[in-house]
């Protein structure tokens, strides 16, 4: 059965791909409207796709009607479509939330260049979500890296250029290892399409041959993508890149860019190598150890940090650690928990970045911890939003972070070998999260000393002064509550989608 809706994933990728070059000839304002239009349109198209696959099941879309082993393919299931909708939502809110900062920090004549990068980033994210071809995935990984680099350095000062350089160096190492992994896998199987590789890998592992090269290929791809998504020992580029770039970039980078790579890794586990082979490999133990280390070390670094944006950035390291710890548990339940945490972290971290920028606006652009004293009173909406985000990260009930911690704990109990380390790491990490987030929230609601209030920089920001930022924050808060309170259908959706992967 063919339906026009089946063309939508391809149309979405092409739309955002052409949005990039088109923005280069438009002025800043027009490029902005074009970009917002494209994101909304792609969100709607992806919604239609989600509805279609929900009733009709997953389908494969062959590009140019070349049959399977030769042609390039797009594969759409429930999880892919849901991710596309979710990424569009988050991206739209990030773009709206940072509109004022972006227009102040990027040169007037170069505004449109920013939107080229955003369009290309969206295009590469969609391609990573939908593609069924490993080498296509590699190419779009690189496009993703390049456009993310552009987003970091669009605010031109020494810090951001240095951060972009460090980001590029780490990312290039990651993509080098990833490409090497793909080459190994191509040699072993002779295919580049995910479904064909999976058949060959199943045959290889049933015959018991080529075990070592297969594990090397899996390890190289996993480590490559782990470096790119800033798993703990490879996170050195992250705090600068998130801490000093313009707020939309920081929010998009933390919530979407790293998640695109992680989603690709999930696809590789399920659709390329096969989950049973992955589960029996030692590679997941390595991911588990680094994930647990990241959960604790990331939080410790965040506690020591006095710059609020760098603190939020270090908290990302801890949260990425959670996701990799879920991979390391190697059970079906743990994969669901990790996938849910992708959503939860994306919704919360972008909320925190945008709320933090609202709070620093009310404190004379000081990002220092003590300058934020009483900022929650000066900018009410940002204060509330930051509190919601902080509580969600800590894992307070009703918020999305609670559900993901609960799912992780439940998955850990089902895995007898790794139960104790996981539960202990979860407990320690939760306490550490609570220390730095609640410390900040308390600082936000501590009344400032009167001599500080007389400074010009400490000003009251009314709700109507930053309309778009407050709208974005409001939607982020709603999204957080929605993820926290209606987790049942979302988890069912993820379960359904992961089931379609196999």
């Amino acid at each position, binding site marked *: 059965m063919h339906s026009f809706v089946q063309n939508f994933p391809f149309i979405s990728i092409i739309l955002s791909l052409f949005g990039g070059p088109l923005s280069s000839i438009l002025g800043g304002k027009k490029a902005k409207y074009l970009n917002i239009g494209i994101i909304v349109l792609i969100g709607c198209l992806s919604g239609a796709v989600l509805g279609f696959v929900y009733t009709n099941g997953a389908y494969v879309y062959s590009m140019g009607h070349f049959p399977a082993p030769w042609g390039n393919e797009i594969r759409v299931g429930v999880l892919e479509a849901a991710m596309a909708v979710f990424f569009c939502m988050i991206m739209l809110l990030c773009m709206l939330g940072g509109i004022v900062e972006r227009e102040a920090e990027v040169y007037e004549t170069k505004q449109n260049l920013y939107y080229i990068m955003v369009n290309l980033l969206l295009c590469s994210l969609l391609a990573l979500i939908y593609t069924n071809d490993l*080498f296509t995935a590699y190419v779009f990984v690189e496009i993703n*890296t*390049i456009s993310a680099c552009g987003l970091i*350095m669009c605010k031109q000062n020494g810090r951001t*250029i*240095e951060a972009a350089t460090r980001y*590029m160096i780490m990312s290039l*190492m990651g993509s*080098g290892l990833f490409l090497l992994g793909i080459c190994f896998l191509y040699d072993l199987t002779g295919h580049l399409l995910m479904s064909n590789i999976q058949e060959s890998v199943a045959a290889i592992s049933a015959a018991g041959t080529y075990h070592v090269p297969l594990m090397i290929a899996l390890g190289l791809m996993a480590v490559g993508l782990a470096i790119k998504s800033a798993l703990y020992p490879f996170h050195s580029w992250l705090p600068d890149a998130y801490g*000093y770039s313009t707020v939309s970039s920081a929010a998009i980078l933390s919530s979407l860019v790293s998640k695109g790579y992680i989603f690709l890794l999930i696809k590789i586990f399920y659709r390329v190598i096969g989950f049973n082979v992955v589960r029996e490999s030692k590679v997941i133990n390595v991911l588990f150890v680094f994930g647990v280390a990241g959960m604790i070390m990331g939080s410790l670094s965040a506690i020591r940090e006095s710059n609020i944006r760098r603190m939020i950035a270090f908290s990302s390291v801890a949260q990425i650690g959670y996701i990799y710890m879920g991979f390391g548990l190697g059970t079906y339940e743990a994969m669901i928990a990790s996938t849910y945490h992708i959503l939860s972290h994306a919704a919360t971290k972008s909320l925190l970045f945008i709320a933090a920028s609202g709070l620093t606006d009310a404190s004379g652009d000081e990002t220092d911890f003590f300058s934020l004293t009483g900022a929650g009173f000066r900018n009410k909406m940002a204060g509330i939003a930051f509190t919601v985000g902080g509580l969600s990260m800590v894992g307070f009930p009703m918020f999305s972070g609670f559900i993901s911690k609960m799912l992780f704990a439940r998955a850990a109990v089902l895995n007898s070998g790794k139960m104790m380390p996981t539960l202990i790491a979860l407990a320690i990490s939760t306490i550490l999260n609570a220390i730095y987030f609640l410390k900040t929230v308390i600082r936000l609601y501590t009344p400032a000393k009167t001599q500080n209030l007389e400074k010009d920089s400490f000003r009251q920001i009314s709700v109507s002064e930053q309309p778009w930022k407050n709208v974005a924050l409001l939607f982020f808060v709603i999204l957080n509550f929605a993820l926290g309170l209606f987790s049942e259908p979302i988890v069912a959706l993820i379960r359904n989608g992961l089931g379609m992967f196999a």
Partner: protein
Amino acid sequence: MSFVNLLGNYEEAIAMILFGIGFSNLLLQKNLIRKIIGFNIMDTSMYLFLALKGYVAGRKAPIVVNGVQSVTAYVNPIPSGLVLTGIVVSVSVTALMLSLTVRLYYRYHTLDLDEISAKLKKEGL
């Protein structure tokens, strides 16, 4: 036995050694230009590896001449296509890295990344 295998596949072994050289240069060098050269060595080693894997001894380049259409007459064309794509990617990334290096050099008059970080700290940005 495994050593004999290694000697038999010495081309692949060389590709992997080159990969290691490039990777460690990209990771450990302080000078940005040397890092970029390391990156290029790393990528090129991968093209060597791919090209080797597509090559079948005694066969010709996959271009149809004199009407010979048999599959067994030609080497595997797909790795060549992958190498081409890879070259495009690595050229654009190299260009981007070089432009970043130029920016940093104009600002800080050094190519040493650690020295740049130290100067940034002094700037207090």
